[in-house]
């Protein structure tokens, strides 16, 4: 099941493991992505924390974690190939995985249909 935030992050939840990325809409707004800074394994984050950074040539954006938890992996591929976010924001271009500490936080997020409606109004 995939959930979305108004800041254009997504989180895929499988058991208590969440995978976080930014949406295809967000990558389109940023343009060519040149650098991604992902969190280190073991970092504890709280919902809404600035957890990763994504940069295009002319802009730097913070990525807020949609849920709280403990980071278990950052996407190492992005260091050498940040363009992966442009090519496949919904899949290969994920940012980090974490163990959810409070699954109830998911309730406040949007589902895909709601997010599409949200983007359509922007």
């Amino acid at each position: 099941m995939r959930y979305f935030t108004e800041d254009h992050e997504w989180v895929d939840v499988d058991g208590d493991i969440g995978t976080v990325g930014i949406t295809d809409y967000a990558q389109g707004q940023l343009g060519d992505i040149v650098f991604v800074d992902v969190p280190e394994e073991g970092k504890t984050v709280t919902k809404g924390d600035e957890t990763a950074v994504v940069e295009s040539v002319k802009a730097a954006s913070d990525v807020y974690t949609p849920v709280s938890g403990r980071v278990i992996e950052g996407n190492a591929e992005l260091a050498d190939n940040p363009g992966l976010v442009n090519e496949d924001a919904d899949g290969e271009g994920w940012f980090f995985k974490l163990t959810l500490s409070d699954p109830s936080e998911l309730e406040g997020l949007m589902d895909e249909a709601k997010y599409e409606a949200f983007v359509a109004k922007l």
Partner: protein
Amino acid sequence: MNTINQSGWRPTTPETCEGSTGTFTGNRALMLEEALIFEIGSTDTTGVEVAEPAEVASRLGGLARNTPIGLPGLSEPETVRHYTRLSRQNYAIDLGLFPLGSCTMKHNPRLNEKMARLPGFADVHPLQPVDTVQGALGVINELAVWLIELTGMHGVAMTPKAGAHGELCGILCIKAALDAKGEGHRKVILVPESAHGTNPATAAFAGYTVEDIPATAEGRVDVEALKARLGPDVAGVMITNPNTCGLFEREMRTISDAVHAAGGFVYCDGANFNAIVGRVRPGDLGIDAMHINLHKTFSTPHGGGGPGSGPVVLSKALSPYGPLPFTERHADGHITLVEEETVGDRHPHSFGRMCAFNGQMGMFTRALTYILSHGADGLRQVAEDSVLNANYILRSLEDTLAAPFAASGPCMHEAIFSDDGLPEGFSTIDIAKGLIDEGYHPMTMYFPLVVHGAMLVEPTETESKAALDQFIGALRSVAERAKAGDESLRSAPHFAPRRRLDETLAARKPVLVWKDPELAQAAE
């Protein structure tokens, strides 16, 4: 690698150069390609002669260099040619109108350069005994006096090295003053959305939290919003006046009074002081600190990105906290330098030192030369002509380009346009790059952030009416081509030394130093 001629230099990428220009060298008449010094020089070549060292036993403590550095040299004629060729790939004020808003690219008088090179200024050491540098201290002191007069302020800190460094100086004065009052808990600096990026960066650098203040639809600070945010946690505000939308903040006095009443201080970003110099004194508007970019208002050269100089004028409330060192003129005309050695208890509240030595002396000499050349009447005329030129551009082009604040009344020294009305697929950058083909440096693009696709045009006072008319014609033509959907604009410039550069590639795989391709290949 395909070496084309025996003199050793090679064009950058021979295949494409030949293909696109059809010449053997890659050159196009006066447009000359120039390789890097690492490609044309050698470590054995030198363009200087150095006296033979005296025969003595080395005392380098066993740390003598025993590896090559890798610094190529060129003979003097080759050096002169290398840099002359490079220079010709630059646009400059000396070549034409340079309408870069908020950056103030005005003519740089050559008398300034000549004066800065007088050995009495250029060949003195900053730590010489003060009796041997009375003239140099005199320049600093005299410039300080005129900056205070021109701004109606109480004191001035001369040492900041550039505008952003001056901002830092002003903010540190505010911090020191608040600490002295036991108000160190004030942690917030309010900054309008339209501010230069240096403002929030400076406040954060000094440990403050930055909060945005919105702009009104007419392009000024939302005074009500600002007043509403004032309170016991606010250390001060940073306001640019004239602002980056090219408008005078007419409520400045009201803002200052409100900030003071709430216990804060008012920092004014003086980047645009050139619009009002000699006509308006910021001190009369209640501000506490303002930096002056000597390269903007007082015509010191920008030099391709510095050096700058950012003296900060200070109110009576902040002057005691200004940095060391500073000059002091005594009744007998003797000038002393008040620094750590001599400060004693005369300036006990100084927040400290911002840089080694005495500030940007070379810039002071130029700025003083400029102030004396213009005089009181000339400086006033500077402000008036800069404002006249900007309004002339605004009113001449508002029928062609969207001018979001045209209805707000006259602009100050810069006119702002937006990309509103350009067809789908065309943006400010296409207008800018189109102007390059017309022989102009583009205006400031996408700044301030409060205007969509902003184009900020600052002609300055050193342009003639004929130069303005030609520029207006060129910008009108480019804008009309964009409106007509002329696709060639989207790949402009076509006639510059380079076409649009791949900034994504540069940022994804940063190549910041030259590496010998053969060595680099061998390493892989």
